């Protein structure tokens, strides 16, 4: 594959179309999508309900294939890149298995892809993740014994086991209450932003997007196409005070305005 990436960019989406019904290619879910994402960037994708946000994440993860256009990650196709264990994914309802303990859930990716193969090394990785997500005391707990925020932290931990270069977040705070959500925003910033990972997050929450991102991509109604890209120029170390600043409020309103244009377009 020809390397079409720019200097610092790691992900390039060029003229991508996708449709779920292969018989009827007129019903596109994503249309002429163009995106370039740089290394270490935190990008939020926001758009009307059902516009195709999750479809874009699935395309980047190589779980879906475009009918036309090209997606390139570090010069590889998404499917090839996925086999290098370099993509992690966090879901709205965490993909933790209720019949396994927190420790066993974190060990699961290493059992499916046994690298390293030694048990002691695998346990070392899991212990490291446990401390990173601050869940050490709950290592032997089952998911039904955890709160929503704790479960989401385990879900994040499972995505981090192979230290992926790209992390895809599919509405990671969507199932949490407002207070937990407020805490988890900064939890995510601390856990993920500081590790210089490239993060692509799909969200419905404008506040989440503005607090966490370097760039917000507003999508049109279905079929999804990029309506606008808004840079977020706050400092890297973000705290709760940010939410009371006028720049924050004006940025939230700016995104709201674009989103209402996108939604009214229905």
């Amino acid at each position: 594959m020809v390397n079409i990436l720019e200097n610092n960019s790691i992900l390039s989406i060029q003229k991508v179309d996708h449709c779920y019904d292969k018989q009827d290619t007129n019903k596109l879910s994503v249309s002429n999508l163009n995106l370039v994402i740089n290394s270490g960037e935190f990008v939020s994708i926001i758009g009307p309900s059902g516009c195709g946000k999750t479809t874009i994440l699935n395309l980047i993860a190589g779980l879906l294939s475009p009918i036309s256009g090209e997606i390139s990650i570090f010069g590889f196709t998404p499917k090839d890149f996925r086999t290098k264990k370099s993509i992690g994914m966090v879901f709205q309802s965490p993909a933790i298995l209720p019949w396994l303990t927190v420790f066993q859930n974190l060990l699961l990716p290493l059992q499916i892809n046994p690298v390293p193969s030694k048990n002691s090394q695998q346990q070392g990785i899991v212990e490291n993740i446990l401390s990173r997500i601050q869940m050490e005391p709950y290592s032997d707990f089952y998911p039904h014994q955890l709160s929503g925020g704790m479960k989401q932290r385990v879900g994040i931990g499972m995505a981090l086991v192979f230290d992926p270069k790209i992390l895809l977040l599919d509405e990671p705070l969507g199932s949490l209450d407002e207070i937990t959500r407020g805490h988890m925003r900064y939890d995510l910033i601390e856990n993920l932003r500081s590790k210089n990972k490239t993060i692509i997050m799909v969200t419905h929450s404008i506040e989440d997007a503005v607090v966490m991102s370097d760039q917000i991509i507003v999508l049109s109604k279905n079929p999804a196409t990029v309506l606008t890209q808004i840079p977020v120029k706050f400092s890297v170390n973000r705290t709760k005070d940010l939410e009371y600043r006028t720049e924050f409020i004006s940025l939230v309103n700016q995104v709201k305005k674009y989103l209402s244009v996108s939604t009214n377009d229905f």
Partner: protein
Amino acid sequence: MIFKMLYKFLNIIFSGKLKPFAFKIVPPLFLIILILLIWEIIVRSLGIPDYVVPTWQQVISELYMKPMFFIEHSLITLMEAFSGFILGMIFSIFLAAVMVHNNLLERSIYPIALMLKVTPIIAIAPLIVIWLGFGYSPKIFITFLITFFPILINALTGFKDVDNNKYRFFQILNASKFEIFLKLRFFTAIPYLFSAFKISIPLSVIGAVVGEWFTGNSGLGSIILVSNNELQTSTLFASILLLSLIGCLLTVCTNLLEKKVVFWRYNIFID
């Protein structure tokens, strides 16, 4: 005096540590006693002969007089029912596992399985006896036939009912179909399997009895047949009681096992 003692007894068991246990046990126990009383009153007051309906004391004394006879035949029926059920369970789970990975196979097998299910087992039983002889095998096979369909359907539904996010997570990890089956599909299906077992276990007792009717040399089914022909109604009632007890015992064991195995379904979230 009796009522005073009864009141005291109920007061003791409905207070303190025994309270949850008492709430489970006492109401059905009282209902059973009430039914026995009504049974006794009707039989005695209407003068019903014991070859039509025996008193419950006659049924109990029948069991008390020939304990080894009833234990031996109960164990035979239990063994046939259990063997047929286990065979049906293994075969259904294996078949569902194959069907969930192959649409064509699912579409091909399902109508045949449905045909087997809707055909009355009592109509096929004589054929099975002709083909498999008079030993245990026709009884076990009839039990297998009657139990396998509910397990097949529930296993298939359970294997398919995988949470989309969990499935995507396994795909992200490049898990093979076999790994997805073993670590995700199978565990997702366990609650569905237990629901099927609760239907199939009482059916397995019916299957064993039907098999015994046609081969008629051992088991509670053959005792029912013989005692019916000889108008030994108390033996017949004792056999029916034992069959009910076997069904109840197997169902209770399944319920207890389900609570142990599917522990995540029986716990309250602290969220």
